[in-house]
């Protein structure tokens, strides 16, 4: 029965990374009403940043630092050259960012090829945890994700920048009338949300084979987590990430990845039917 703690720990680390991805998606959506379809590809860019530094011989750790910076800048560019022209056309932002996701994916294929690439394990040792031995890198993932999630909550709930962002979410016109530069807030948030995806991609890179399609594999569960958790508050994401990520990894383990996809998807659709505002029942921001 040594499997059970490992299974739980694995699920937990997956949940945390999923929350990281979903959080970037949801703050962008909550603030601007924009679903960034390229979010999965930002994850992808983060992972390939690590692939690149690893193959250049600089190793994993510089890549982990670089990934959120590079992806944040890509997000900034996307906001500046594209998104800001489309704020009045919400459905078109989805399409445009989707076009961006196609282009990014294809660029990755052109530069790195379509095949899966591996990253050298940055922390190959096992840690003795009494009952079990557990990979040190997975423990690092948990620690890193938890700190970044905590950091994001702190920014949003405790700082002036977060206060301004929350005000823009709640009532854009009123926030602007109080002297808050909403455009600036949008740009900062988009950059920050993108950087989160990049970081998540970099964190996950050593655990999986990195291929150009991997973004979608995180984008969809992250999105389902948002649907399940509701977009009204950041805490909804914690609940949604737990439900989606938890059931996904446990069912994958017990049965198969395909059956877990079906179950998670069906679960999400049923939640949408019964509680359109998400399981926490917070009101959706229109």
């Amino acid at each position, binding site marked *: 029965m040594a499997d059970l703690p490992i299974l739980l720990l694995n699920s937990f680390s997956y949940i945390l990374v999923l929350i990281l991805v979903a959080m970037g998606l949801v703050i962008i959506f909550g603030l601007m009403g924009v679903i960034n379809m390229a979010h999965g590809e930002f994850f992808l860019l983060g992972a390939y940043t690590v692939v690149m530094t690893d193959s250049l011989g600089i190793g994993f750790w510089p890549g982990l630092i670089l990934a959120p910076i590079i992806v944040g800048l890509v997000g900034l560019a996307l906001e500046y050259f594209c998104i800001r*022209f*489309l704020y009045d056309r919400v459905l078109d932002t989805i*399409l445009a960012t989707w076009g961006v996701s*196609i282009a990014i994916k*294809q660029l990755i294929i052109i530069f790195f090829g379509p095949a899966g690439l591996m990253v050298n394990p940055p922390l190959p040792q096992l840690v003795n945890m009494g009952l079990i031995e557990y990979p040190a890198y997975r423990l690092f993932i948990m620690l890193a994700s938890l700190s970044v999630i905590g950091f994001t909550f702190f920014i949003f709930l405790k700082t002036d920048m977060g206060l301004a962002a929350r005000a823009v979410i709640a009532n854009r016109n009123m926030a602007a009338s109080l002297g808050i530069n909403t455009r600036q807030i949008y740009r900062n948030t988009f950059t920050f949300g993108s950087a989160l995806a990049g970081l998540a991609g970099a964190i996950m890179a050593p655990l999986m084979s990195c291929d150009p399609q991997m973004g979608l594999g995180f984008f969809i569960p992250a999105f389902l987590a948002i649907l399940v958790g509701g977009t009204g508050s950041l805490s909804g994401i914690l609940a949604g990430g737990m439900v989606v990520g938890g059931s996904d990894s446990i069912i994958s383990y017990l049965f198969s*990845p395909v059956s877990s*996809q079906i179950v998670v998807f069906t679960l999400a*659709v049923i939640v*949408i039917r019964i509680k359109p505002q998400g399981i926490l029942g917070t009101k959706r921001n229109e």
Partner: protein
Amino acid sequence: MNKFAFISPNGRVNIIRIFVLIALGCFPLLQDAYLLSQLTVFLVYGLFAMSLSLIWGYGGILCFGHAVFFGIGAYIMALTTKGMIPGMTGIFTSTLFALLLSIAGTALFASILGYFLFSGRLSGPYFGIVTLAVAVVAERIATKWDYIGGFNGLTNIPAFSIGGYEVLDPLVLFYVILGICLILYLISDRIVNAPFGTILSAVRDNEDRVEFFGYNIANLKILIFSISAGIAGLAGALFAVAAEFVSPTILGFSLSTEVLIWVALGGREILLAAFLGAISVRTIEALLSDILGYYWILGLGVLFILCVMFFPRGLFGQLLSNKPRN
């Protein structure tokens, strides 16, 4: 009111319609068997694109996973005509029955899905991505399900047959499919110009106002979603016959992406523009993709972004629109 949907008050649009029909009809004169078989498949894609335009352009419902209906239609067609559905033999394996079953099956699937999603008042962006998830999951299922061929799909699909007569000549098949496309175009055009289509456009532009007049928005959306899915299913069924194979790729993410690009580039708000979008992109792709390789999709993606930003009505949409340029 015009008796024939094909003849609208706008002369220029009608000339283009007739020109397109004649051009397609005369295509076999080129006597190139390979191109003809290609174009037959492209016609099917055109029909598929039209079904997307019906919900997206007219209904304002963005569907990122439309290939799931195309694929289900194709699989139903293949399984039925190959006699692989338990208990269905004889007449039940005929092409016509299989076509009907493809349409009904996909429409039913769409209405069930629509019931869960629209009644939950899932707004535009959410809906789009949930359908994307459906497509991805469906592709995974088809890949793992050995009975329906798994990763390799199904081949050796029986030829199109009408009352015992098998259409083996590619030329005849081309005209049969062209005819079906024309009929479906006329029906769809009728739908969007009928009162139902007007209400639908009103829902697209202002949902609350329509609801205020006592219409049940969810039911309206489920209905048009099912109609669109049914047409996509029919296109899929024809694809199975024309291409003589089905595989998980026609069910999932990439075809869903492609059809959206065709329709966006062609023009989402005009059925014929969407149809032409599919045919032209596929034709150009057939000519250029070998030379451009990976850069083809990159270019298509960039073109798609520019089109969304600067030509939301699409390249053919502007040409075929009755509305003035703005």
